[in-house]
């Protein structure tokens, strides 16, 4: 069953077509990677799906319901969460509060003016901190964490929403190889234990081929190929795009 059904999706930035007529579906339970060179339109694609940008044309259905043009907060409520390529946290709150607030929002308690904020979802906040390995940093100011840790926090904030489908935009960008391995092992494990459907973009091909069940290739805003990892590895068009770019060609 497809949880995301995308038809003819197009985004025109005043003449520059960043996403061009993309038709795509995401199957329940799969781990699907979107790859493509820088500027291919991966982030724009995510922005269109999650309501951050309005499409110029086309439609997005989530679990059979049209969500095109819905504001992000409504889409998140349906169970479609995302993380961001560029760090997007609450920088002057503590790490703990970052996650706790996300849980408050998930439980619709963000309009409760007479229940103490600090007392909400304490256990679950701790559990999430443990899960992403930020337990010792709980009381630090989020914006002062190392880059890799902020990325972990970014992930935890998204997980707190308890999504059924999670979109991760370059979850390991800027991480050291060791941090990358840890982060990916974690994502993989969480996806398994929570039965998450995962759509992610990633520049590190060893990561992509390590965890993806299916891979789609975006190039100049167009979806040029989609299939199993071994099909993609041998797809001549994919090889051409990547060979043309130089790096990652060996993968």
């Amino acid at each position, binding site marked *: 069953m497809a949880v995301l059904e995308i038809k003819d999706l197009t985004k025109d930035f005043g003449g520059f077509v960043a996403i061009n007529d993309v038709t795509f579906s995401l199957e329940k339970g799969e781990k699907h990677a979107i790859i493509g060179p820088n500027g291919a339109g991966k982030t724009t694609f995510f922005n269109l799906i*999650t309501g*951050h940008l309005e499409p110029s044309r086309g439609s997005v259905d989530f679990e059979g319901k049209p969500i095109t043009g819905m*504001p*992000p*907060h409504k889409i*998140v*409520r349906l169970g479609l*969460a*995302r993380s*961001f390529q560029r760090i*997007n*946290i*609450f*920088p*002057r*709150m503590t790490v703990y*509060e*970052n996650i*706790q*607030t*996300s849980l*408050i*929002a*998930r439980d619709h*308690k*963000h*309009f*409760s*003016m*007479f*229940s*103490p*904020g*600090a*007392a*909400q979802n304490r256990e679950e906040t701790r559990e999430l901190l443990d899960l992403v390995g930020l337990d010792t940093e709980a009381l630090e100011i989020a914006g002062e964490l190392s880059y890799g840790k902020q990325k972990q926090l970014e992930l935890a*904030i*998204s997980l*707190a*929403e308890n999504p059924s489908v999670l979109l991760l935009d370059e979850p390991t960008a800027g991480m050291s190889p060791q941090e990358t391995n840890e982060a990916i092992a974690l994502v993989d494990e969480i996806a398994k234990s929570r039965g998450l459907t995962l759509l992610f973009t990633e520049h590190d091909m060893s990561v992509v081929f390590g965890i993806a069940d299916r891979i789609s290739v975006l190039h100049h805003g167009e979806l040029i190929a989609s299939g199993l990892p071994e099909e993609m590895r041998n797809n001549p068009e994919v090889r051409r795009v990547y060979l043309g770019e130089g790096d990652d060609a060996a993968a």
Partner: protein
Amino acid sequence: MGWNMPRGVLFTCIVVLVALALIPMADSRYLIDISTEIMVYALFALSLNVIIGYSGNVSFGHAAYFAIGGYTNAILLTTYELPLIVAFPAAVLASGLAAAFVAYFCTRLTDIYFAMLTLAFAMLVWAIAFKWRSVTGGDDGFVGVTVPEFIDGRVPFFYFTLITVTLSTAVLWMICHSAFGQTLVAVRENITRAGFIGVNTRLMRGAAFAVAGAFAGIAGAIFAMYNRGVYTESAFWPESAQVLIMTLLGGMYSFFGPAIGAAALYLLERFANEYTEYWPTVLGVILLVIVLVLPEGLVGLFKRVKARMVGGR
């Protein structure tokens, strides 16, 4: 319960409250008047900070809600001869609803556009107060406000103000430290991300604006009785600017900062007026100092000094 006020803050609050409660013992009209006015301005500034410090928007028109609270209370008490128990809550409700109405429009915008629209609505309130002479008294002001007997007198009124401001501040503190208040900080910190954790950020900012308006209305309603009158100036932009400066001077990232700023600016103005005719110049300098040296206000300065003394660096 789960409401944890830091020990030091709680202790300071108690000391300040006890000190205030003892002020009438000094038997000085001057001291009682000054403290009554400072309490009113402190609540006014604290209410503005729900918008500024917590929701991350700037209002240039907060005086409008102070004025609406003042006029409503004055008119209901005097023209309609209603008891305080009706007039006062009605005044607070009127301010809150007016603020909710304005927020409906302002929250479509952010940053300077939001601020300019709050100013525009405040000018509208001022114009109504000015033109609707039969109800508001126009530019003569609404004079001769009926003050209920039980608080008619300097000392009883002082205690009425002390109790009302204390209770209001306690409720405001709870709101700011509630699940709502914490989420509001998240909206201030990163409005985009707040949307992506499932928060309707426009509604949150609107709710903050309405709460702020209601509490400004409380301050205004007290002030109308204290002065036995309400004047169009109370809705005029310099009044909005003054409370904004109070808030920034005290420090917008601390709950009590604005109250400290209100006291500081009020006392500075009093003393400056005794020694010079150049209060506007002094005010300009204060503003420059805030912007250039004290972006987190007096509370920020205090924290920095404390950190330096403790850290030994």
